[in-house]
């Protein structure tokens, strides 16, 4: 019993749960109290010594107070409160045992895990106090939860923390028992992405309060850590790619540190960077050149600093898949030899990610094929069979008339975009005869017959004879300025400068207005049709695919009129054509449920399969073949997910670090052997986990919300002195109502002694007996 009223007694009094055990009528109590005061007053009417009225009043008051206090105690005052019945209910003690608990940021240089262990299991520790009242069941958790009996089960080695999972596990294990509460020790650094407050509320709804104890510091005082690394998972163009690194820092503001990227043991890139202010995260970019064509695991390391507390987050491994993959196939048909054709071909020629198969009409009835894979490709002209057309991801139509196509081919072109998800670019003249065809539907610009155009917009692209043939400086729209298709540099200022250096274009084909759903990226600076500037480059979605129109045939000037070493023309065309082709549906796509995995994780692989018409295929046999870094091989049949069309799943556990290569092979019901598009290669990496060390500061907010959501309370580890008592008095499903006497409180006895002493001293001072 404490010397003064306990907090729970004060709470009870404040909440009006105070009463007298001998419940006499309040009126009678009042009368008796008054009678006491009157009796004292009567006895003081005559005194042995004469007293001034003031002294007399003082003496009457003190004596009355003594008697009233005794009278109060005789009435036996009590508060009614709730308390668990000793040993009749259970308490779950749940201890965070993940790697972040090994961080030594507790006063005295202790690790978080050591501090918790000491508080719980040292002599006179919390465990003993709790065991007086509860049947204690202790659990450790990281991404999984297990029962432990003492501190020897706590290793601080888990590679992830999931408080939610721990609460659910405890709930399951102790359901059916009289669970009176949960006591959670953690740094709150939860990294499983599931908010545990919901589970806490579920406990609260069943009157099981969750008490949380926070350990560690909210900001680790001295740490430089890699928070995030973003690199292209697959390297698309050229050999150089950027790695974006986010570095957090506490205690080393403004310091210069070295960042290095390793491929195995070899350093492949280094950079000195200056850290931001304390508690900030700054992003840096490192350029990398992959040196071999396969999946490469890079290790990024930031230099260790003096007195740094957490060293584990100074390294980060990531996978970049630089393995050879087939280029995107683009079919380009053009009606006559011209500069635009020549320079589009040249722009793409050295890009290994794109293959341009071209079919050029060089003369009446004469065609010239380039970039073909086999002697048969395009040998009979524009494809007439869906299979032949669908082998391409995008199609470019140059200056070509409608009579080049049959109606069937045009319809197939529509399906190619809408269903196969291919891209269609019309770059050049638009034959009036296309106005009533599907092409008018697919394109982002409306097609207006030239006879309906105003006179100023008729006249063709010949220079010097008509406004539509003149030189002009193309204007990027705001969408165009920031579009991935037309960027010449990542920096806005540099991008604008490079664009301003490009030569003028010449000649514009007038087609009509941009459609409402289209995105205009570039427009003519002067010429307008129906109060809208003539679109020069416009794009739009069409079904599953994309369409695009370029209404000038002079982009080659960006090549011939710029220094030979300038790459703007090449870059723009590669970007535009890659954009056009890259979103085309694939026969087989492979996805993983996570970016990377750690040893012991379960890898869930999903394959989405389409048939030859690019419709989702539920009748395929899908096999996954996986080879691990340790030489292990797994061959599994993937199972169709009945809830999702065309989706097949498989999963397996990974038990070693390194790169896992995977091949998904599809044999459809139609049976197509030897088709490369029915095989899909993919890779993932299993790395040492660092997430426990990034953002590993104590998350007090989360722990507080868990406690408050369930009717419990939050404590700092250093302030857990009253924890055991507090838990026993907190209302729960298994606490019962008890009445606590207040008359025997030492405070009241002390007050009584004080009043009696005062009475005696005052009487002696006035010479009374």
């Amino acid at each position, binding site marked *: 019993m404490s010397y003064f009223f306990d907090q729970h007694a004060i709470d009870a009094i404040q909440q009006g749960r105070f009463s007298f055990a001998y419940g006499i009528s309040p009126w009678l109590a009042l009368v008796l109290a008054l009678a006491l005061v009157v009796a004292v007053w009567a006895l003081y009417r005559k005194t042995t010594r004469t007293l001034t009225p003031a002294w007399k009043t003082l003496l009457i008051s003190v004596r009355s107070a003594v008697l009233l206090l005794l009278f109060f105690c005789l009435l036996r005052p009590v508060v009614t409160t709730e308390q668990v019945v000793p040993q009749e209910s259970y308490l779950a003690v749940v201890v965070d045992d993940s790697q972040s608990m090994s961080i030594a940021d507790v006063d005295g240089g202790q690790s978080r895990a050591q501090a918790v262990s000491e508080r719980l299991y040292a002599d006179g520790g919390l465990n003993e106090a709790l065991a007086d009242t509860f049947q204690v069941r202790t659990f450790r958790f990281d991404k999984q939860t297990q029962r432990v009996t003492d501190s020897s089960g706590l290793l601080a080695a888990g590679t992830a923390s999931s408080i939610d999972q721990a609460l659910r596990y405890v709930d399951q294990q102790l359901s059916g028992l009289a669970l009176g509460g949960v006591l959670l020790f953690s740094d709150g650094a939860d990294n499983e992405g599931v908010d545990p407050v919901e589970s806490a509320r579920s406990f609260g709804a069943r009157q099981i309060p969750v008490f949380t104890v926070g350990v560690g510091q909210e900001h680790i005082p001295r740490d430089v850590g890699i928070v995030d690394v973003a690199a292209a998972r697959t390297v698309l163009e050229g050999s150089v790619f950027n790695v974006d690194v986010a570095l957090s820092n506490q205690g080393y503001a403004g310091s210069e540190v070295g960042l290095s990227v390793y491929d195995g043991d070899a350093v492949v890139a280094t950079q000195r960077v200056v850290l931001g202010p304390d508690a900030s995260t700054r992003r840096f970019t490192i350029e990398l050149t992959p040196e071999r064509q396969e999946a490469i695991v890079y290790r990024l390391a930031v230099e260790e600093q003096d007195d740094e507390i957490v060293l584990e987050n100074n390294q980060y491994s990531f996978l970049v898949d630089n393995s050879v993959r087939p280029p995107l196939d683009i079919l380009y048909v053009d009606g006559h030899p011209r500069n635009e054709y020549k320079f589009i071909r040249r722009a793409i020629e050295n890009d290994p990610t794109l293959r341009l198969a071209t079919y050029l009409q060089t003369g009446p*009835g004469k065609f010239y094929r380039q970039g073909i894979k086999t002697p048969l490709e395009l040998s009979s002209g524009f494809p007439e069979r869906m299979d032949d057309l669908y082998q391409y991801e995008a199609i470019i139509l140059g200056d070509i008339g409608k009579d080049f196509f049959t109606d069937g081919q045009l319809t197939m072109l529509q399906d190619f975009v809408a269903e196969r998800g291919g891209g269609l670019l019309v770059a050049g003249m638009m034959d009036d005869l296309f106005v009533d065809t599907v092409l008018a539907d697919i394109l982002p610009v409306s097609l207006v017959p030239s006879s309906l155009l105003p006179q100023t917009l008729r006249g063709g692209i010949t220079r010097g004879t008509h406004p539509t043939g003149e030189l002009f400086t193309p204007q990027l729209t705001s969408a165009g300025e920031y579009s991935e298709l037309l960027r010449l540099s990542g920096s806005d200022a540099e991008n604008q400068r490079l664009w301003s250096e490009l030569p003028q274009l010449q000649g514009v084909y007038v087609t009509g207005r941009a459609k409402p759903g289209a995105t205009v990226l570039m427009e003519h600076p002067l010429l307008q049709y129906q109060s809208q500037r003539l679109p020069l480059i416009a794009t739009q979605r069409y079904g599953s695919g994309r369409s695009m129109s370029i209404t000038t045939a002079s982009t080659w000037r960006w090549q011939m009129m710029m220094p030979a070493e300038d790459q703007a023309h090449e870059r723009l065309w590669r970007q535009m054509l890659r954009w056009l082709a890259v979103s085309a549906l694939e026969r087989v796509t492979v996805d993983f449920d996570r970016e990377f995995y750690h040893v012991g994780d379960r890898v869930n692989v999903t394959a989405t399969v389409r048939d030859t018409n690019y419709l989702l295929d539920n009748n395929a046999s899908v096999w996954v073949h996986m080879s691990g870094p340790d030489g292990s091989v797994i061959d599994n049949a993937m199972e169709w997910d009945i809830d999702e069309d065309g989706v097949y799943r498989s999963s397996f556990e990974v038990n070693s670090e390194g790169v896992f290569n995977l091949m998904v092979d599809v044999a459809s019901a139609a049976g197509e052997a030897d088709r490369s598009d029915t095989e899909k290669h993919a890779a993932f990496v299993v790395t040492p986990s660092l997430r426990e060390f990034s953002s590993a500061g104590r998350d007090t907010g989360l722990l507080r919300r868990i406690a408050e959501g369930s009717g419990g309370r939050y404590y700092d580890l250093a302030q857990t002195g009253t924890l055991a008592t507090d838990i026993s008095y907190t209302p729960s499903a298994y606490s019962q109502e008890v009445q606590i006497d207040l008359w025997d409180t030492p405070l009241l006895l002390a007050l009584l002694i004080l009043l009696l002493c005062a009475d005696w001293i005052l009487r002696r001072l006035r010479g009374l007996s």
Partner: protein
Amino acid sequence: MTARWVQRMAPSLATGAWLLSALIPGNALAQNTALPLDFDAESFVQDMNGADTLGQTEFTWIRGRYTNYGGGRGRRGGRFGGGFGGRGGWWDTDYPDAESNFLRGVQRYTNIDANSKSYDFLDLTDPRLYEHSFLYMNMKRVPIGSLYSGPDFQPDEITALREFMFRGGFVLLDDFWGEVHLEEFQNEMAKLFPDRELVKLDTRHELFHTFFDINEVVQVPGRAVTWDYNGGFNLDDPDYPPAVYAILDDDGRVMLVANHNADLGDGWEHTFYEPYPTRYSNEAYKITINFLIYAFTH
């Protein structure tokens, strides 16, 4: 002047056209679709008189005007001298009749947007050169072995030519004969590209198959073979074996091609000149159309 020449030659034109039409489609296009060849003197004269104008078409044939050995860029017979042995330039040999005839052929046979007037000439150092991607130059030195005519590329011309080709331009050189001219040509090429090899192409190269399938490089003779005053040349003279030289870019594409022991310009110019053997005109057209198509596709 050109039109007057055509009128003078009108009687021969019909015969020439007939010969041309008889020869080209038969063999050359055997593997391709037969083409109508309907040159006729009437429409030709009409074109020459002004139906076609420069600037109406997407393609313009550009002839390069270079610095002569004699100095300056003047035309032969101009103020810098003239005639054989003089200090005149020969860059404009056969100009513009050769262009006009040939472009008419381009217009008829191919889908290249051209007409009989879509030609022009530019100094090599003229920045407008880069508004085009095809350049023709006549390398004539007269007489053979002369050091007083023919191109003497100056540093600024060399810079411009190199840049033109590196950006993607295609250069066709024509009309130089014999060992002495070949050496001079090699010297000029060494000035242009000291670090690039001059390769001799055989007919397996793509250049010979872009439009017509050409399986033999023919010695297209100069007019001297048939000219009234007999220049001393014989047809298919074994002392002058025809060859096609090329300079390749870093990706193996031909960026400059040169016809040694051939005079394509005369082949085009004398299309309708009766004494000039039509077969050689045809060969001149065929190989040049192939060059043009190659230039537009590589």
